[in-house]
């Protein structure tokens, strides 16, 4: 195979590298934070030994915290896809270098490069499939994506240690400002390099270096434009033309994206539904009785692990008022159970989440009753809590004493 691109070379590779050097750590950290946000003992996958951040109670403030961290994780992950592909294109001559192995050191390095390339592509593919609800891979997304991320962390760290010198030399070898001012007519190959990126027999250029950067940046901008609608409300949501969260099932006050429909969850709340409160003074409330309790309204986001989010106005009973009614004014935890079965039918809230003045058992949204798909008769809505933990179709809440 002959590589003839006149644009490949250490400078161009280093430009892509520096973008990824900034972006990848943000992806890793926001991903690890997501597991913390699920709550103590509720992170997925469950047992990961040392491969986790030190546990801490996920804060409720700012209320957009999870919206930000998870939106950044998914959004940035999508936007960086063209940069990853461009970086791989820029170094691909090395994959076919001959002889393939010259020393044990090189053999080992190539093995870790397989880990690096395999893990980044694995993370991109599983992440993209997950946000589009395609589970063709047939293993737990949480387990695969989380453990794959740690393979990436190790391989990425080693790559940075071994190659950061080369990256700095590459960046210094040409002036970015001058490249941005150089049209096609003035585009010449980089001088021959030790690493073998520069083509020995380059074809005449068909694109300037600035054109190549604009092409990759344009790809990222296109993906950003097609993804940003996932986190916007109103007509701007439709910008997400090709993603599941660019549409809603209905218009009106309940017209914002649903996560797991009532039909899919197999939930049909009985007409005589009551809320059970467990604690030292167990209580039972009908929906009318809940509506008669002091109501609180808060504008809070629902933000999902798939990166989409929406800001809505919720009305309901404060969780801390319910805790007091159950006889546990300062609970150590609250265990919420749903009418549905399945992995997210039960969730535990931290004291901070129960006591937050905006922590709600919501009965209404935007001034009307919750729709069945949004959790009627009642759902949890807590600031900065991942959407999947804002349990819908609540059946009971148990407040545990400290």
């Amino acid at each position: 195979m002959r590589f003839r691109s006149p644009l490949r070379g250490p400078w161009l590779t280093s430009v892509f590298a520096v973008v990824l050097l900034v972006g990848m750590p943000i992806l890793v950290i926001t991903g690890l934070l997501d597991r913390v946000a699920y709550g103590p003992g509720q992170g997925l996958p469950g047992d990961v030994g040392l491969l986790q951040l030190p546990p801490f109670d996920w804060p409720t403030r700012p209320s957009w915290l999870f919206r930000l961290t998870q939106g950044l994780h998914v959004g940035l992950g999508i936007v960086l896809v063209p940069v990853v592909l461009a970086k791989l294109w820029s170094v691909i001559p090395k994959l076919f270098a001959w002889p393939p192995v010259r020393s044990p050191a090189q053999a080992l390095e190539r093995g870790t490069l397989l880990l690096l390339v395999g893990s980044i592509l694995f993370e991109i593919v599983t992440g993209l499939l997950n946000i589009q609800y395609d589970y063709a891979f047939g293993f737990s997304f949480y387990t695969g994506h989380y453990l794959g991320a740690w393979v990436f962390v190790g391989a990425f760290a080693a790559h940075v240690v071994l190659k950061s010198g080369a990256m700095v030399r590459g960046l210094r070898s040409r002036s970015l400002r001058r490249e941005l001012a150089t049209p096609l007519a003035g585009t010449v190959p980089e001088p021959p390099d030790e690493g073998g990126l520069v083509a020995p027999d380059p074809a005449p250029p068909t694109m300037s270096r600035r054109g190549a950067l604009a092409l990759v940046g344009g790809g990222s901008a296109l993906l950003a434009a097609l993804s940003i609608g996932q986190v916007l409300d109103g007509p701007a949501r439709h910008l997400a033309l090709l993603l599941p969260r660019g549409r809603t099932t209905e218009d009106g006050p309940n017209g914002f994206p649903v996560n797991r429909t009532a039909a899919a969850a197999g939930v049909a709340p009985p007409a005589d539904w009551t809320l059970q409160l467990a604690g030292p003074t167990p209580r039972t409330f009908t929906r009318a009785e809940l509506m008669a309790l002091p109501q609180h309204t808060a504008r809070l986001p629902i933000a999902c692990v798939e990166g989409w989010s929406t800001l809505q106005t919720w009305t309901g009973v404060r969780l801390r008022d319910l805790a007091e009614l159950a006889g546990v004014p300062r609970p150590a935890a609250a265990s919420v159970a749903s009418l549905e079965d399945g992995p997210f039918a039960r969730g535990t809230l931290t004291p901070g989440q129960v006591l937050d003045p905006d922590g709600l058992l919501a009965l209404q949204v935007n001034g009307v009753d919750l729709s069945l798909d949004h959790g009627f008769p009642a759902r949890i809505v807590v600031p900065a809590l991942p959407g999947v933990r804002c349990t819908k179709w609540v059946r009971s809440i148990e407040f545990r004493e400290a």
Partner: protein
Amino acid sequence: MRRFTDRYGASPAHLAALLACVAPAAYAASFLLGDPALLRVLCWFVGAAVVHDLVLFPLYALADRLLTRLPVPLVNHVRVPLLGAGLTFLVFLPGIIRQGGETHLAATGLDQEPYLGRWLALVAAMFVLSGLLYAVRLLLRPRSRSRAAA
């Protein structure tokens, strides 16, 4: 020290960095030992790299080589929308080819029906826009040349 470097092919620091890299990967993989999903995860892990390096790259490199036979001013007016089409196809593949319709419906209450049409419209829009820009370039070029001649 020198003997090590001669035999290994790099400094001991190189070896240390690589081992430090393999350690978390091996530790992460150890959580899948005995898991029936292990083989599938490995397949997707290695498969992702192999498909990219040995299928996707050769395909787009070949397409690009064919493309560069076009006259140079035209090349990028085809290359850019073509890459845009390929990129969006890869990233939004499940919706476009309607894969995972059942989980999509369960999660969102919606079908995947609109995505293919929307993607085709997007691709058409990119090619039309690129074609229009090319037409504008063609219209402007001879005039500036004749001016230079004058």
